[in-house]
């Protein structure tokens, strides 16, 4: 975001034409709390997700498949390879093949952009709080200009959402030793259903979704169905940030539950 070009020593709010106020902000509220919270939580998620993505173990148990590894496309996936093994002998973790899609979707998401520009890049850390950078080019250059292809990651997110829905549906069945299948409801299934619900709410409240279904039009009156869809997505879109957080927690929790089940730390709570 910042270029290497040197800026004048006194610029921004300390520039020669601005009111001479010595401090970078006069805000007295706890403006630092929101970016700090974002920084801590997102960092914790990044550490956890990186560890789990590279771990390449304990990502499925019975019919529960971790959302970090779904769809599982390598030979190591065993019974969890619901979509075949096109990457058969892939030597690294199966998660590394597919995580680019949810990762790219979130990295280029309009809400996450706001969050990480504020919390990680301090550009700005909060409103009316001067940022530390001397120069700024925004999203006009590589790599940040790539955020403009957010819609393509949204297309992929639709597919990911469909696959996770399929996983959640599969989680309600039992494998018998003779191949016989029967239904059950366990805590894991409920966790996967809640997770996929939040994933869909996050995906369908996306700004690119809002644009695609109808926002791009100039004549709502000529497209009544798309206008209706746009009003629905607009209602969801207001809560996009909330869904971004909920789905971040739910996907990590679903993975953690399956990890703990898989390595035997906990046992499944079954309702029937």
């Amino acid at each position, binding site marked *: 975001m910042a270029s290497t070009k040197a800026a004048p020593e006194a610029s921004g709010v300390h520039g020669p034409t601005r009111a001479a106020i010595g401090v970078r902000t006069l805000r007295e509220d706890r403006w630092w709390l929101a970016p700090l919270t974002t920084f801590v939580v997102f960092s914790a998620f990044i550490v956890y997700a990186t560890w789990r993505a590279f771990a390449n173990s304990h990502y499925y148990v019975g019919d529960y498949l971790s959302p970090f590894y779904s769809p599982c496309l390598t030979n190591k996936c065993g019974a969890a390879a619901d979509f075949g093994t096109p990457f058969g002998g892939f030597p690294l973790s199966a998660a590394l093949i597919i995580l680019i899609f949810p990762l790219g979707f979130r990295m280029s998401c309009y809400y996450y952009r706001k969050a990480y520009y504020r919390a990680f890049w301090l550009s700005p850390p909060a409103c009316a709080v001067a940022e530390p950078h001397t120069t*700024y080019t*925004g*999203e006009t250059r590589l790599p940040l200009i790539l955020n*403009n292809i957010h819609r393509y990651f949204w297309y992929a997110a639709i597919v990911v959402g469909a696959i996770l829905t399929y996983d959640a549906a599969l989680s309600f069945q039992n494998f018998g030793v003779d191949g016989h299948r029967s239904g059950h409801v366990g805590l894991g299934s409920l966790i996967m259903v809640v997770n996929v619900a939040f994933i869909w709410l996050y995906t369908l409240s996306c700004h690119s979704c809002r644009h695609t279904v109808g926002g791009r039009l*100039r004549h709502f009156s000529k497209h009544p169905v798309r206008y209706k869809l746009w009003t629905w997505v607009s209602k969801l879109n207001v809560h996009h940030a909330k869904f971004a957080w909920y789905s971040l927690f739910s996907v990590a929790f679903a993975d953690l539950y399956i990890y703990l089940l898989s390595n035997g730390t906990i046992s499944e709570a079954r309702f029937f």
Partner: protein
Amino acid sequence: MAYTLKLKIWRGDKSGGEIKDYPVEVSEGEVVLDAIHRVQGTQAGDLAVRWNCKAGKCGSCSAEINGKPRLMCMCRLSDFAEDETITVTPMRSFPVIRDLVTDVSFNYEKAKELPSFSPPPRDGDNKRRMAQIDVERGQEFRKCIECFLCQNTCHVVRDHEENKPAFAGPRFFLRYAELDMHPLDTNDRRNLAQEQAGLGMCNITKCCTEVCPEGIKITDNAIIPMKERVADVKFDPLVWLGAKIGLRTKDNDGRTEV
């Protein structure tokens, strides 16, 4: 109940200035602008302050109150504890003229750069027609009172004076979006919004939305939709291909790029 407000005001001009104490008696129900006027009337007759309607509709009394960009006339004293100090400074993104008055001509220069609404010829009965839902779409944007608090808080120019020539700011992205969504406008400003107005410099950190006294969702309803519209013409190969083979051009019929 009257009480003595611990008020601080930045006094000075482009050669320098300082924050000075002006303890002033205020009453329940008053706003910051009332306190400023009382200081002007009783203690500092030469205090420069720009104001007009005192009703949050003219957009004149923009300033920073305890560091937050706000309208002085819409900032109630009851939002603060009686023993709390209130510090009022001019907007910090624009050149200061004197005391609380800044030179906001940057915004008028940017307004001039934006090609105006350009309707098509009238219908046979000498009228133009729009459906009600298309009329309603732009109403939120027309609530803008041009207080320029969004322009003031936008870090792209607040923290980087050198960006001013290349960046129009949120108030004008709002206008770009309004016109781009207007079914009767014949100008296509999407490339212009990116190239001349610097839409790509916005990193959607939403401070413009946070400070808007009219509650306009500038980022979600104007800037992001405008970024998506720019992506249609500049960053999306599928839309480009669709337009080339004639699949997706109907909605843009009658528009020419400016």
